[in-house]
């Protein structure tokens, strides 16, 4: 008896592993990022990506790293079946705490814009991370013990932490410097270098993403987090300590937001609890969702989240390059649209297979009108000036959109009708 050569099975399994790697959904996001870059390069009449790629690349890298750090936390919470609306406020609060600690430890140096001692900076950073842990623990307690839904618990801190941060900053500046201030300026160039260097946030993001990936995909805890998100009751009945896992998830999210808070105050040279990080939580959730995390829980990957962040920041930079002045007016609209498109089409693909109708009934009619109006308004705002004028352009675009949606509605109706008139398998058996 002879045995098969040992190299054949390993070649086949290597080929299978490579095929699995190449078929991962994240490649779609890589393609999307590349498409955005190419499109921006073409549509930007100054071709800044071509003639001056370095500045844009650095800008995107910086923004991706900063957003990415706390998006990892958002993703972990979402995968575990929860939601964290407080990231932006945790950033603001943590940044304020970091600055406040520096003021308390070195009031004269902070006021006179002198360099701080490394001990002061380190203590402030460590203290801020501890505060992050405390906030995460608070979230976990509110959710697992008090029994609040995660949405409510983190909504409370979204509102409360900014207010608390502001009170702390105003009172500490009044008590320490004799004059109440709504913000604390950061002058120490070494502290600021943590953020302004670009490479430090980038390396930090890569390291944290690597650790998060290891946790989620290579550890038992990671599998338990997925299980928790997939079906909490089943996970609990299987003996998984779901409350502890939630504590872990929310602590990770809050600590990562605290790290981002430290970087942001360095980047902006000021800790301003009222405005710092406003709305950032939505960008983090959007990045996680675009990257494949399901808000129902149990589904999501760290590579997907990383690419989701990169995709969002690339789109935002592309919008700024193409629309140029006043781009931030449209940034929210375009990011929101991209998120809806990216997630909804995935669900379309899943739902369409089950014959779901999206434009049926009175709500379908209202939706068709809604989307047509939106298309018309967008055409009037964004499209180039033509001989038609914005009003006519809006009407034409809206009208065409409405027509398309009516046709789609008709097609859906026919498909459903065909499905109803087609013989059921049981009918075929009876006739046989």
């Amino acid at each position, binding site marked *: 008896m002879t045995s098969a050569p040992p190299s054949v099975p390993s070649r086949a399994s290597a080929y299978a592993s490579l095929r699995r790697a190449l078929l991962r959904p994240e490649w779609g996001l890589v393609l999307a990022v590349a498409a955005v870059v190419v499109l921006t390069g073409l*549509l930007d009449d*100054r071709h*800044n990506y071509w003639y001056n790629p370095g*500045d844009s690349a650095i800008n995107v890298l910086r923004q991706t790293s900063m957003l990415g750090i706390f998006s990892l936390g958002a993703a972990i919470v979402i995968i575990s079946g929860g939601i964290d609306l407080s990231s932006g406020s945790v950033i603001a609060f943590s940044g304020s705490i970091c600055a406040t600690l520096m003021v308390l430890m070195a009031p004269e140096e902070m006021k006179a814009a002198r360099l701080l001692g490394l001990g002061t900076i380190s203590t402030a950073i460590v203290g801020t991370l501890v505060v992050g842990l405390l906030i995460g623990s608070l979230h976990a307690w509110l959710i697992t013990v008090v029994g609040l839904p995660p949405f409510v618990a983190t909504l409370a801190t979204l509102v409360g932490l900014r207010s608390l941060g502001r009170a702390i900053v105003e009172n500490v500046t009044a008590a320490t410097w004799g004059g109440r*201030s709504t913000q604390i300026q950061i002058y120490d160039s070494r502290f600021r270098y943590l953020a302004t260097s670009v490479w430090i946030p980038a390396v930090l993001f890569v390291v944290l993403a690597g650790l998060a990936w290891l946790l989620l995909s290579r550890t038992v805890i990671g599998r338990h987090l997925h299980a928790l998100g997939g079906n909490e009751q089943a996970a609990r009945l299987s003996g998984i300590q779901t409350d502890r896992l939630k504590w872990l998830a929310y602590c990770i999210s809050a600590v990562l937001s605290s790290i981002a808070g430290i970087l942001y105050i360095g980047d902006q*040279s*000021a800790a301003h609890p009222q405005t710092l990080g406003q709305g950032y939580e939505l960008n983090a959730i959007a990045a996680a969702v675009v990257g494949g995390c399901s808000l129902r829980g149990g589904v999501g990957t760290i590579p997907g989240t990383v690419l989701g962040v990169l995709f969002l920041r690339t789109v935002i930079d592309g919008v*700024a390059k193409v629309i140029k002045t*006043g781009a931030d007016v449209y940034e929210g609209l375009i990011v929101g649209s991209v998120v809806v498109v990216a997630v909804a089409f995935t669900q379309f693909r899943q739902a369409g297979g089950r014959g779901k109708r999206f434009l049926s009934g009175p709500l379908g009619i209202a939706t068709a009108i809604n989307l047509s109006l939106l298309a018309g308004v967008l055409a009037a705002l964004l*499209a180039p000036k033509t001989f038609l004028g914005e009003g006519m352009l809006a009407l034409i675009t809206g009208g065409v959109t409405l027509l398309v949606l009516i046709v789609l509605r008709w097609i859906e109706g026919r498909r459903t009708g065909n499905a109803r008139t087609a013989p059921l398998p049981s009918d075929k058996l009876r006739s046989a």
Partner: protein
Amino acid sequence: MRTFSMRAKLIVSALLGLAALTGCGTSTNRTTNSGQASTGERRIIIMTNGNSPFWDACRVGLQEAEKNLGLNKAGFRAILEVNDGTPQGQIDKLRQFASQSDIVALGISPCDAANLAVAELMRDLKKRGVHVVTIDSDMDRETLRDTRFAFIGTDNLAGGRELGKCAKNLRPEGGEYVTFVGRTGAQNAIDRVEGVRQGAGDKFKALDNMADETDLTRARENVRNAIRNHPKLNTLVGIWSYNAPAIADVVKEMNNRKQFTIVTFDAEPLAIRQMGEGLIDAMVVQNPYQMGYQGVRLLKALVEKDQGIVKEMFPNLGKTDGDIYDTGIKVVVPDEGSALKPEMFDKKTEFLKLSDFQRWLKKYDLTGS
């Protein structure tokens, strides 16, 4: 293969759709700028600190300068970039400007006079050959003067003093006052508040300096809180443009107009109407139209190296405060019944009754200043 290619196709299709909407790079945002720079055009940008009708007058000045100075023919486009009221908004925009090659000049009204991040980015733009000036509010003149070529705007300290004089002459017996402002860290705010203190004199006591971060709802809430918390309060001082209507609205709502002397900065359209209704005693009005006009004029001259215009605007350049172009201030009072007289103010200050001021606005096709 099906999973990722389907998602990729759909995402790319959506992007192409969005790209089609943006009209192949010639989109126009009418609400914030006068047009879109097409290939070859260079942009001169004035960036605001926040969003308020004050900047509408600046936009009119900017557009007039664009037309009168032949900017389009010379290959320029002047654009007003509206910030969201936060330093981080300005930081993000400055970084974007650095990565766009067609921006040749920038006039900025910094949210915070001492913000190092903004200062560094302004210096970076200067190093890249972009001409930078400050408009309406300056960077800290002690430590960050090098971040810009010059300042165009109001002498805010002088303006604050005139406002303080308004309070002093309307209430010779003195009293207690609260100042209301967007951001206490903005240089124009710092200067005006100090100016009010100087102009009002020793008989007036400052109780508080309340910031609202350009949140109009909070601006009103601050006024309500100030009135509730300080029983002896008798003078309300608005420092930024939208604080005037906020104060007037609250006083009308609480029906205690007679209890307060109200003196404010700037003349938003609503504030002008409110003065007509007797809700505001005096306004110190800047000239944002000239800030926009002269800002564009100077920036174009810097780009074209037109030393004639630079010397005309800054005859004392190189000397102390020779880099400041004062766009002047007006004191506006109600047509009837005001105790204020021109001789109470500085000779350089223009004194106007409300109806004369409204005629001046009409001459420039403005609704506010």
